[in-house]
Each structure stands twice: as C-alpha cells, then as structure tokens.
C-alpha cells in the first residue's frame, strides 16, 4: 500500500511497508492499512491490521486485509448523525455491539475467503489446521486498530498489539486507550481467538474543548523499533512539528522511506502508520498545510 493524501477538515496520510526481516526471509508485508475517504460523509474510518505471520497464520496478510475492510463496513453502520442519535446511545453501541460485530463479520469474511480460495499444498498449511485450537481462523490471524471520526466524536478501538496515539495542539502525546498487560513479548490478543471480542479496548471522545491535532495508529513493528517508549512517543510530537513546518505533502512524500529505514534500523518487522490531522486547529498554527 502506498502513501496517500485525502481532504478536508481532517486530512489523512499513511503508508504500510514490508519489514527488513520480511525482505530477507521472503515474507510479504502482512500489515494492511485503510485510510478514510474524507470526501464522503462521516464517519471517517482509519483502520490498520497486522497479520501474525507465523507458520500457523500463513494467510495472515489476507486476514489483515479482511480486517480493515470489515472494520470499515461495520463502523459505517453507526448511527452517527447527532440529530438521529444521542451521544450516550452511540457510546453504548460502540462498547456493547461494535466489538462483537467486527469479530463476527471478520470471521464471516474469513469463511468466505476460505471457500473462494481453498487451501493448496504450496501454502504449507500445518496439519491440524482445523483443530479446535483456533480452527482455520488462526491461518488468517491478525490484530486490528480502528479510529472512527465524526463531526461530534472520535471512537478509538483496538484488539491486539499496535499503538494509537493522540497529539494535542501543543504537541503533548498520549494514549487514548488503557494498556493491556496481556500484550507482552511477541504474544498478542487476536481476532482469531475464541471470544476475542472480549479482549477489545474502546475509548470514546466527544469533540469538544481541545480535540487532538493529530491521531496516529501504528503496527507494533513501529514502536518496537525504538530504544524506549519515550523515543516512540516522540514520533507524535515530531510529526506534528514536521507537518507544520514542511507541510503535509512533504511528510507524505517521505513517509515510505522513513518507515523502511525505521524497520531496517529497528525491529525488522513490517511497519505501518496511519495519521489523521485536524485542519480546523488554530489557524495561526496551520503552517503550509492550512
């Protein structure tokens, strides 16, 4: 997937790059990124998925692609017109319904994909693929991050590893979602696990007061490329500064090269970044991209 630009109110850019270790070993990029169509009516949905890539998850690149498309389709069903639904009802929908529905629809998409593309020996499917452990869903296993933006609220949703960051107008970086202690080492919660919807984390932010100037979603290969957490969080404030000084187009033009270098010097994993930039921020600070 290549870097892209879309307009207005919010702008979006992103790129997904095959990791340095995947290049060496001949593995494909197993991440997937879906940027919002900001020219359409809200909700605008940024979705990012990271296929597990293990021998048992030999179709996880497809699982990641199905995940981002599923997330977008489910989120578009949200009654996000504030005239038609109270925010409290929408929040309730997000917390009680969204996770179950994303997982259910992803599994349906996997079933359909398996039916359309039966397993072939060349894929090296391990024996016992259809075992009760994870069934054929394990072959497509992936994590998923979703940011849904409307005129009145932002919804953050995550199942598995990866990072969502927000950056204020003043460059303060934070995480909108609570940490998940189960994500340790290379172990992760996953769309493919039984009752995985219970593992999803959700945060709901009403767009009032000081909404974020920047929202970032990244696969875990990005954060794992930094020596420490502080170094990774600095990506948020540095990107805001770069967008304001050099312009969004310049950042978008460099993004793929940056991600390649970050993977090469860092984790070696696939690295994917999706960014939403708010353009209705203080006009004095818009810089070249206002």
């Amino acid at each position: 997937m290549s870097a892209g630009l879309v307009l207005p109110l919010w702008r979006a850019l992103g790129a997904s790059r095959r990791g340095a270790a995947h290049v060496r070993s001949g593995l494909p990029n197993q991440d997937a990124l879906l940027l919002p169509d900001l020219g359409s009516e809200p909700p605008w949905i940024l979705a990012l998925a990271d296929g597990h890539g293990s021998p048992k998850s030999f179709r996880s690149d497809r699982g990641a692609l199905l995940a981002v498309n599923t997330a977008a389709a489910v989120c578009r069903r949200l009654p996000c017109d504030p005239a038609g639904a109270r925010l409290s009802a929408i929040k309730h929908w997000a917390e009680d319904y969204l996770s179950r529905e994303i997982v259910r629809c992803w599994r349906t998409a996997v079933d359909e994909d398996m039916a359309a593309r039966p397993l072939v020996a060349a894929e090296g499917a391990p024996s016992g693929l259809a075992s009760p452990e994870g069934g054929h869903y394990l072959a497509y296993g992936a994590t998923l991050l979703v940011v849904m933006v409307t005129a009145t609220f932002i919804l953050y949703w995550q199942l598995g590893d990866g990072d969502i960051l927000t950056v204020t107008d003043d460059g303060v970086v934070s995480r909108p979602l609570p940490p998940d202690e189960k994500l340790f080492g290379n172990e992760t919660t996953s769309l493919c696990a039984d009752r995985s919807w219970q593992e999803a984390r959700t945060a709901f932010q009403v767009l009032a007061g000081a909404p974020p100037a920047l929202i970032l979603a990244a696969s875990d290969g990005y954060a794992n490329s930094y020596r420490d957490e502080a170094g990774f969080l600095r990506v948020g404030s540095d990107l805001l500064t770069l967008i304001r000084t050099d312009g969004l187009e310049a950042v978008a033009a460099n993004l793929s090269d940056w991600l390649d270098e970050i993977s090469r010097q860092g984790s070696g994993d696939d690295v994917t970044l999706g960014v939403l930039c708010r353009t209705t921020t203080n006009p004095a600070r818009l810089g070249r991209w206002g």
Partner: protein
Amino acid sequence: MPKLPGGELASRPLHFIWIADCSGSMGVDGKIQQLNFAIRDAVPHMQKVAEDNPNAAVLVRAIKFSNGAQWHIAQPTPVAEFKWLDLEAMGVTDMGMALSMLAEQLKIPPMSERALPPVLVLISDGRPTDDFQKGLSALLGEPWGRKAVRLAIAIGEDADYEVLQRFIGHPELKPLQANSPEALVRHIRWVSTAVLKSASAPASQPREGGVSKLNVPIPAPPEPGPDVAEDVW
C-alpha cells in the same frame, strides 16, 4: 532524507543464557571438558546466525551451579565479542539457586519490555541438591521467565529428566538427551543456531483461549545420524 521522526532507533535485545551444571559428577568421563568444547565450538555459528538477523541484538552470558550458584559470564555480551570461559567441575547440584539468581536478572528492569523472548538453556547431568521448586517458582514469577524459550539438555542417564521437563514447562518440548560427546555437540549446536534463529525474528503469537503457549516456534531437533556414537555417559 530528512531526520526521522522519533527518538533513537535500536534493534531488539535477545538475551541468550547458558545455565550450566558444574557439580562433581560433571568431572567424570570428561563431561565438563566436552561441554566446554561444545559451547566454544558453537560460538562462531551463533555469530553467523546473529549476523544474518541484524534486527536482533544477541547478548550472551552464563550462570553455573555446584555448591551454590554464580554468574560465570555476568555481563550480557554482544555475541560478536563473546568468548567462552572454561568451566570446572566440583561440588553438589544447587540448580534451584541458579534459577533464583536468573530470575533476578529477568526482572524489568534490568530487562527491557521491548526485548525479544530470552533463550534459557539448562544443562545438567544430575538431580538438584537444593530447593529446585523455589528457584523455578521465582523464575516463572517474572514475566520474562514465563515468556522465555526454556530448553534443557540432559547429560547422561543420571540426569533428572523430570526436573528438566518442569523447567521447560511445555509438554510438547522434551529435554534433549546427550549420552555421548557427539550428541552433546549436536544439541548445543542446535540450540545455538536453529533455536537462536527462530528466536531472532519471532512472529506474533495469538493467545489461544486466554492461555499462553510456546511463543517462539521451536524447530525440530536434529535426528542422530546412522553413525551415531555409542552411549558413554
């Protein structure tokens, strides 16, 4: 290219730790000499594996146990600079103390949360003479102790296979039995290369049913060839 956003980039640390039995019985029939030879022989192969996986920073050290336990090579040493120091055999088999000392070093800090799962290789020819369970509990009480790739090599028929299996903690993985110098070299070479390679670039592992399983795929150990040596230990 403009300066990259964010702080300092770094490959992920991969700690590889030998846990070696230096009890008196290891001095019988040349076992300790063969262990020294096998590890020294494996070092260049470890270095080659590490060169091929530059996104993992392999750091090697060793702990030994006999009357008590102590770090034999205490500093996590980049594998490119690693040199094996010969062990000597004497005393009893205080394996539990070695695991307790290991647990201290697997705390966060000094370990980093962004590390790759460490590889712990326990090598023994006998039964623990101290409180093994206390040491194992301390080890498994640390997140990196639980997530580590834990492997064991049983030297000779007097090794406590059941204790080594409890250290490994996964029924699908068995202790490697080395009843001859050739088998010991083969097993040491395998953990130093095939396992190290697998641990250097592990794929994400989904938690299945909320249960943590082997989080690094372990390749099949090598089968002994037709010219397998006669058991001597």
